[in-house]
């Protein structure tokens, strides 16, 4: 599904990623953990195509395509989805417009017929229910005035509507209280499928207790220093990252 080989990237001449190697197969959930400033968010931004980041070396192959050559919207059409650490507020654009435009843009590129208004609304109401969001969210401007938890739920709502093949979830658990964390976590679990992979970027174990990853990787100073199964996350929670750095 996704193959990252020796990926180097920098922002403003400052190297952040210093040779990342990662293989993700269909149906797998991978978690990337690491201390602040280790490059976790840079990795998801580079994969989603944010242009402040310059890739200086390496390659990323996604479903036999060179991912780095695709524009952000082309990556979305190809089935990539990024849940933002800080979802962007867009005053003046209603959430429902964004959702419908996005769903139909992605469907068009997957060779599916456009969803008519009634079908779209039926679908979006179903997903709102899962995320325990009221219908009023449709008519509010995108993320404007949403609480931290509402923004993250809105991200997962979008993910459910867009049905990506590869979801990158960047610190989706940050800023969530216990209830919101459970709703978001279960929202992600519902998306688990044999042909869908998830890359969770997180600081803490608490989301991983709900969304059990198949693999856990520790990112330190722009490189994956250690990989393991779920027990690695438990060990990190107890011992912190310092032990890894020494090792």
């Amino acid at each position, binding site marked *: 599904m996704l193959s990252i080989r020796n990926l180097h990237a920098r922002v403003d001449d400052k190297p952040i990623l210093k040779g990342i190697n990662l293989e993700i197969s269909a149906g797998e959930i991978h978690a990337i953990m690491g201390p602040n400033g280790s490059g976790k968010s840079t990795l998801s931004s580079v994969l989603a195509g944010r242009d402040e980041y310059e890739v200086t070396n390496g390659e990323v192959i996604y479903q036999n395509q060179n991912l780095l050559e695709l524009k952000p919207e082309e990556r979305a059409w190809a089935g990539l989805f990024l849940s933002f650490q800080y979802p962007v507020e867009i*005053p003046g654009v209603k959430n429902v417009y964004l959702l419908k435009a996005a769903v139909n843009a992605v469907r068009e590129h997957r060779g599916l017929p456009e969803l*008519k*208004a009634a079908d779209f609304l039926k679908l979006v109401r179903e997903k709102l229910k899962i995320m325990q969001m009221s219908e009023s969210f449709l008519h509010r401007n*995108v993320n404007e005035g949403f609480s931290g938890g509402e923004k993250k739920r809105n991200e997962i709502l979008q993910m459910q509507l867009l049905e990506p093949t590869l979801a990158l979830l960047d610190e989706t658990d940050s800023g969530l209280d216990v209830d919101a964390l459970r709703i978001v976590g279960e929202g992600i679990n519902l998306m688990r499928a044999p042909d869908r992979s998830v890359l969770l970027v997180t600081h803490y174990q608490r989301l991983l207790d709900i969304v059990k990853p198949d693999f856990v990787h520790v990112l330190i100073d722009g490189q994956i220093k250690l990989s393991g199964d779920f027990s690695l996350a438990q060990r990190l929670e107890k011992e912190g990252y310092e032990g890894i750095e020494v090792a």
Partner: protein
Amino acid sequence: MSGLYTLLTESERYSAKDALQKGLPSKQVESWKYLPSRTLNRTNWVSASHRESTGFALNGGRFANLPLCDGLSTSTHSSLNPSEIARLENIASAHGFSLAQDALNTDCLLLEVMKLAEVRIDLSRLANNASEAGFATLVIRVGEGARLLLIEQFEDVPRSQPNLDSLRILADVSRNGEMKHLRFQTANDHAQVFTEIAVDISENGHYNLHTIDFGAKLSRTDIEIRLSAEQASTKINGLAVTNGSQYHDTHLAVEHRVGDTQSAMTFRNMVDGKGEATFNGRVLIEKNAQRSATEQSVGNLLLSKKARVNPKPELEIYADDVTASHGCTVGSLNQNELFYLKSRGISETDARAFLQYAFAAKLVELIEDAEIRELVESRLLGELKHGELISELKESVHV
């Protein structure tokens, strides 16, 4: 005053001589600094001709089909009172062009909305023919407790040559009166549109203006509001969508002459191509105008490298107990917002259209008259490259 020379030499009014002597304001005159006066200067303007029309219209410098309704009386300039005459003279004295407007004025109509009456007036400003210049004045009295809705629309028929339409609106809003004024400018590509709006507001009176510029090669709007008695208030919203080689210019001056008066202004300029937009918003709060409140917000969105904006908010406050706020931003589309939309599979062009629409829509939503609001919105969507997506969404998603 080369372009208007022939017309001015034919005019018998004394202001014609002054206008010829003064000439058009130079670039040194602050309020005319950015205005491209080439066409005004180089066209050999002739008097505008009148043609048949339906509905209340300004047409070739003359008003036609005067509105008839309960609570409204119409008469000519001979009925103006000394204060109105003095105010018109004062407006004329500003510079050479305002003198020319005065000298070349061919029609002056007085509309009086009777005490407690409620009146709606729809005025169409029809396109003048090539090289024709029309000048007219509308004087409005809104009686005590009366309510007036004035809707000014522009005929958009193709013209291949410059054409000039100038209108001065002088209004008085009496005690407890209210005037709502909607100006939806969609004049032809070669039009030179000049509008002067001067409003004096009495106790507890209100003047609300929406000024929306889409059309014309050049549109210049001067707005002067005087809050002359306690609890007088004004709200002014403006949107200019400027494209190609258009020039849109709004000069606004609000004067808080006494205490307990309120003003609020919201303007948005969206400039693309080689367009240029100027906004000057001056608020003066006199020394004795205590407890006055004013707020001004000006947003400018530049969509191309050659687009230009000249925003200038000016606050002049002499009273010490006032609430005043102002904000002015100039920028291009927010890259973070663009990336967010694109990461959801929305194409670059659609994402740009979304954000441009969002920038302007705030001003459109403020228009109370549903019919006009829809007209403005559909024009806005038509101006956007790839506005169709939003049109479709708006039609399809009514929950």
